């Protein structure tokens, strides 16, 4: 006679054994390490924030993990707004943002938070206009008017004036912006507000704004994806996203009147000569410098001045020091501009402020 209980018990043990086998084994990582380092158990540090620097942060964390196999820095790019929020809620250990925290946000945080610039980057206007292959140029006011919904067709007089010789179609402009709280938005709106008083009045500067027109996409990734797929679209993303996905992006007119294409040189020029305050919160959009790219910005890592978890704090400080020195050489390959030496020196001094 069959014994149903035994049979189901057997099934259960088989399933349990399978689960244990799955959980117990650890597959090959993309790097060559497969075992926990002899130095100790794996320690995971969670961070979240900006999508702007995500490509270089993910490279850095990967490299750091290779050289320190027991350290896993898990970074989720949920947008600068998310980085600020989750850090203030203490659900992550560090944050990342390209829109520096304002005084009110700092005041509302449970403890003092420090800003540390990590790289320089540029926000570029990307577009997808069938038939247009040459690089377009925009002035700040024109971009502002597109995002205010006042310029609605690609062959509008304002755009044509700035792009002589380019045959622009009568296609409608499909405006794409961010749907999540974004430092990239902050930088973009910062520039537009400086060059267009109307934009400043109607929209303003923040990580999340009330958009007069357009479609929202999530993250730099989402905006790039949507512009890629929508003929007639315009969007704004960090330079590397445009380059990695081979999307055309426009040159932007700077304060000196020249139309500058975002590049390592032009982004570095934007930071040159800017007085860096002690808390490192500074805006370098619409820079005075002649060759500067006007929509450039620092991006910051956010840390508590007095973290409760000293072990993780030590590791993160070590990482930061590495990122500010050796890590900077990864920047150029990914089209971010490395930090000026004066800024790095100032930061290394400021790191001492973190109470370990």
């Amino acid at each position, binding site marked *: *006679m*069959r014994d*149903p*209980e035994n*049979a*189901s018990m057997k099934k259960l043990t088989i399933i349990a054994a399978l*689960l244990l086998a*799955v*959980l117990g084994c*650890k*597959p*090959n*990582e*993309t790097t060559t390490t497969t075992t926990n380092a002899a130095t100790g158990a*794996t320690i*995971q540090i*969670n961070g*979240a924030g900006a999508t702007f620097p*995500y*490509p270089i942060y*993910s*490279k850095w*964390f*990967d490299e750091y*993990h290779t050289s320190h196999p027991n350290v*896993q820095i*898990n*970074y*989720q790019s949920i947008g600068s707004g998310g980085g600020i929020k989750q850090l203030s*809620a*203490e*659900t*992550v250990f560090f944050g990342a943002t390209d829109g520096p925290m304002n005084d009110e946000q700092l005041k509302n945080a449970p403890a003092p938070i420090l800003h540390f610039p990590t790289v320089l980057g540029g926000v570029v206007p990307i577009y997808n206009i069938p038939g247009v292959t040459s690089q377009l140029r925009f002035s700040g006011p024109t971009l502002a008017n597109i995002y205010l919904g006042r310029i609605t067709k690609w062959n509008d007089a304002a755009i044509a004036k700035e792009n002589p010789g380019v045959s622009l179609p009568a296609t409608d402009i499909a405006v794409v912006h961010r749907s999540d709280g974004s430092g990239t938005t902050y930088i973009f709106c910062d520039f537009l507000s400086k060059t267009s008083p109307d934009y400043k009045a109607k929209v303003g500067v923040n990580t999340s704004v009330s958009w007069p027109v357009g479609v929202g*996409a*999530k*993250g730099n*990734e*989402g905006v*790039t*994806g949507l512009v*890629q797929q929508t003929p007639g679209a315009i969007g704004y993303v960090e330079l*590397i*996203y445009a380059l*990695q*996905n081979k*999307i055309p992006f426009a040159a932007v007119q700077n304060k000196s009147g020249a139309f500058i294409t975002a590049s390592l040189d032009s982004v570095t020029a934007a930071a040159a000569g800017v007085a860096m305050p002690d808390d490192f919160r500074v805006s370098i959009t619409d820079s005075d410098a002649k060759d500067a790219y006007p929509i450039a910005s620092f991006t910051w890592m956010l840390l508590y001045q007095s973290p409760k978890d000293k072990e993780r704090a030590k590791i993160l400080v070590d990482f930061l020091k590495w990122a500010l020195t050796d890590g900077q050489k990864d920047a150029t390959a*990914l089209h971010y501009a490395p930090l000026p030496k004066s800024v790095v020196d100032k930061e290394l001094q400021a790191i001492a402020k973190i109470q370990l």
Partner: protein
Amino acid sequence: MTSLRRRIVSRAAEIFCAFSVLVALLPLAFILFYVIKEGIGAMNLAFFTQMPKPVGEAGGGMANAIVGTLILIGLAALFAVPVGVICGIHLSEYPKSKFSTMARFAADVLNGVPSIVIGIFAYGIAVLPVKRFSAIAGGIALGILMLPIVIRTTEELLRLVPAGLREGALALGASRSRAIFSVILPAALPGILTGILVALARVAGETAPLLFTSFNNRFWTTNLGQPIASLTVQVFTYAISPYEDWHRQAWAGAFLLVMMILALSMIARFAVRRLERMNRP
């Protein structure tokens, strides 16, 4: 002798009904076709054995997300099965009491709550107080989603157990709890297991509540107190990105997800029926 007009109307209606079946099956075929075509093409060994690569680099896989999903539904079952089954027992034993009516009402309410609202709740009780995203918080959210299905299945199946079985047990002197746990519950077990598997299949595909509970994790982890990757969140992240390679992996992830869910439902249908047959003396 029905009029011609009425017969035509009747025919037309019948054709419309047959047509609607086709209309419904069309997107199903369409979706499955795409998922299978893109998904199978996208799968390789790396997909199952590797972790994600840094942004922009091709390759890598979803090993951590696959295990993450399994861990999450395991946690969900850990919470929902004991609570749901025992609650179902209570509802079937005392079906008319005021308390049972309220509890049944609560389970019905829970069934209709959108998963994102459950996510907000789980964030409030399992993430904020301990100040961290974790697999456990994700498991709690999914467990709450599973609960109504388990409760309802248990209650209905226990009621279906022939009264003779219960009366026999009680006549032999068994207390209520003995009767339930030793006789009635085992008899209903195959059906209850089906319900659990169906509920698991349902929550394995959930994304929204995980966005702010289990969050996401680039690395391999089995630490339940840390954020964990999941197939659904990973597919979402990759789908809205611009990277071709990520799109490919998203389809692979979607394919795996659909296969997992189908497998769970099939096991629910067939393997459990075999258990049923084995149970009968």
